[in-house]
C-alpha cells in the first residue's frame, strides 16, 4: 500500500474512533487535554507501524494495546515527575479532573478501583472490547481479565455512590 492509501485509511480510522478513544482515556483518569495528547501519541505510533496494524488480527485490539502502553508510560512519567521539591513551582498545573469528577458519581467510583481493574472496566464497558480483544490489548490471559472484571464489578456494586443506579435498568 502506498503512502497516500495508508494515510487515507488511517484518516478514516481516526475519524471513526477519535472521540471514543479520547473519552476512554478520560475515563482512565486523564484530563481531557492529557487524553487528547495521549491518543494523538498512540495513534501516531500506530500510523508509523500501520502495515502491522492492518495485518493485526484485530485492529481495535492492537490500537488499544498501543493506547494502553502510551497511557501507562505517561502515568509513569507523571509519577517520576512527582518528587518532593524544595520550592513549589509558581505555576501549578490545573487539575480540572477534580472539579469534573466531583459532579460525576461514576468517575468517583472508578477511582475506587485498582488501575488494572479500572482499565479492564473501561475497555470492556466503554470501548466495548470483547474479552478476547482485551487479552491482546492488555497482554494478559483471559482468566486474569475475567477476574479483574469480576472484582471490579463487585467493588462498583458495593459502592454507595452508585446505589441509586443499582437495579435500575
Amino acid at each position: 500500500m502506498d503512502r497516500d492509501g495508508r494515510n487515507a485509511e488511517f484518516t478514516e480510522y481516526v475519524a471513526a474512533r477519535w472521540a471514543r478513544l479520547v473519552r476512554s482515556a478520560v475515563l482512565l483518569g486523564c484530563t481531557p487535554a492529557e487524553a487528547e495528547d495521549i491518543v494523538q501519541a498512540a495513534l501516531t505510533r500506530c500510523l508509523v507501524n500501520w502495515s502491522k496494524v492492518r495485518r493485526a488480527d484485530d485492529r481495535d485490539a492492537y490500537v488499544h494495546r498501543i493506547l494502553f502502553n502510551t497511557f501507562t508510560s505517561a502515568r509513569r512519567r507523571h509519577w517520576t515527575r512527582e518528587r518532593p521539591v524544595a520550592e513549589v513551582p509558581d505555576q501549578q498545573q490545573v487539575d480540572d479532573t477534580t472539579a469534573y469528577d466531583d459532579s460525576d458519581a461514576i468517575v468517583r467510583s472508578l477511582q475506587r478501583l485498582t488501575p488494572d481493574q479500572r482499565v479492564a472496566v473501561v475497555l470492556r464497558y466503554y470501548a466495548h472490547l470483547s474479552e478476547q480483544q482485551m487479552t491482546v490489548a492488555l497482554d494478559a490471559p483471559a482468566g486474569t481479565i475475567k477476574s479483574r472484571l469480576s472484582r471490579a464489578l463487585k467493588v462498583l456494586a458495593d459502592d454507595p455512590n452508585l446505589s441509586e443506579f443499582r437495579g435500575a435498568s
Partner: protein
Amino acid sequence: MTDHDLAHLLERSADRTSVGSPPVPEMLAHADGLRRRRTALRAAVAATSVVAVVGGTALVTAPGTDPAPSPPVDSPAVDLAPPGTRLVGIGHSAIAVPEEWATNALRCGEAEKPTVVIGVTAIEACLWLGAPAVDNVWLEPGLSEPLYPAEDFEIDGVAAQRGPTTCTDADTVDGVEVPRKCTATVYLPTESASYRAEAATEERVEEILSWIRVHPELVALPGYERVNSNHQDDDAGEHYRAALEDAGFVVETVTESQPGGKPGYILGVDPQPGTMAEPGDTVTITEVAEPRGPAEEVSVEVNSVGPGESNFHGLTDAEVRAGATIRIELGATIWTYGSGRRIGTLAGEVSGTALALDDWEEGPNYGHSWVAVERGTSTITITITADGRRVEIGTVTVVVR
C-alpha cells in the same frame, strides 16, 4: 447493577467530555518524521546484528573482542542527546556520552579506551596493571556497593545520590607504571540505576557524571545475561520478554538455531540494551531455536595437535557441519568432542588408512581420537545416536602431510 447499567453510566459520563476534531495532519507529519528515523535505525541495526549474535558467545574464546557494538546513534533518543553525544541508560535515566566513545571496550575488566560499559556480566579473570587512565562510565542496575558518605541531590527533579570521589595514587608495581585514577558513583533509586565514572582527575569524573539526565518520555532497553556467562535461567527468554514488556516495549521474537544451545536462551536484542527508546516501540529478541532434529542437540568440534605439542588446528561446529578439510602433519593427533544432551553417544567413523584409532584408553577422547599414521587422505564422519538411530553431524576430510 447490570452490565448494561454500567455501560450506560460510562457512556453518559464520557459524553460530557467535549472532544475536538482529531489533529490528523499533525499525526501524519509526525509519523513521517518518526518513520524516516526508524528506517535509518533499521539500516544501522542490520549492519551490527550479526556482530551482536557472535558477540553472545565470543567473550570466552576471544578476549578483547567488543561483546556489544555501539547502539545505533540514529534513534528517537537522538533528538534528546546533545550534539556529538549518544544516550545510554537504565530505566528513564541516561548518560550522554561522546559519540566517539566505544561500548564495553574492556580488557581484564579495565577500560582500554574511552568507553561506556553496560550489560557486562562476565569479566576475564586476568590482571592488567598498566591499564591506562581513560574516561569511562559503567552502568549497572541497582547499586553494587553502598555509597558512603552519600550526598543527596536531584537530576531533572528526580532524587539521586552521589558517593565521594576517590583517587588511587600513581605507582610502579613490578616495574609497571600504574596511573592515577579517580572514580565516583551516582545512583538514582527510582530508576535503580548506578553510574560509576572513572577518569584521570577528580574534575573529569565530575564532568562525566554531569552528563546524566532523566528522560521521562524515553526508556532504556533493559539488559540480559549473556549466554557465555552461563547464568541464563531456564526461562530466560520468557523472563526477558516480560522485562521488556514491563518497560513498555512491544516484543518480537525471532529464533536462530544454535547447535547444542538451550532453546529459549537469549542470543541478542535489537536495538542494544541501554539504547533509549520510546515505550510502544518494537524490539526484537533473538532466542536459541528448538532443535530441528537430534543433530542440533549437540555442538561438536574437531581439533588437532602435533606432532608434539605444537601445530594446533581446530574446526568449529559450523565448519564440521559444512564438511571442512583439515591438513595435519604425520604423527599428529586429531580428535572430536562436544557438548549437548546426547553428546555421550558421540562417535567418529573413519574411512581411509591415513588415520588409526588412538589407543590411549585413559585419554579424555578415547573412541573418538585418532593418530595420523600414514600420508594421504581420510575422512571422519561424526555421529551421535538418538533413540537407537545413527545421526550424522558432519564429515571432515583429513589430509595428512
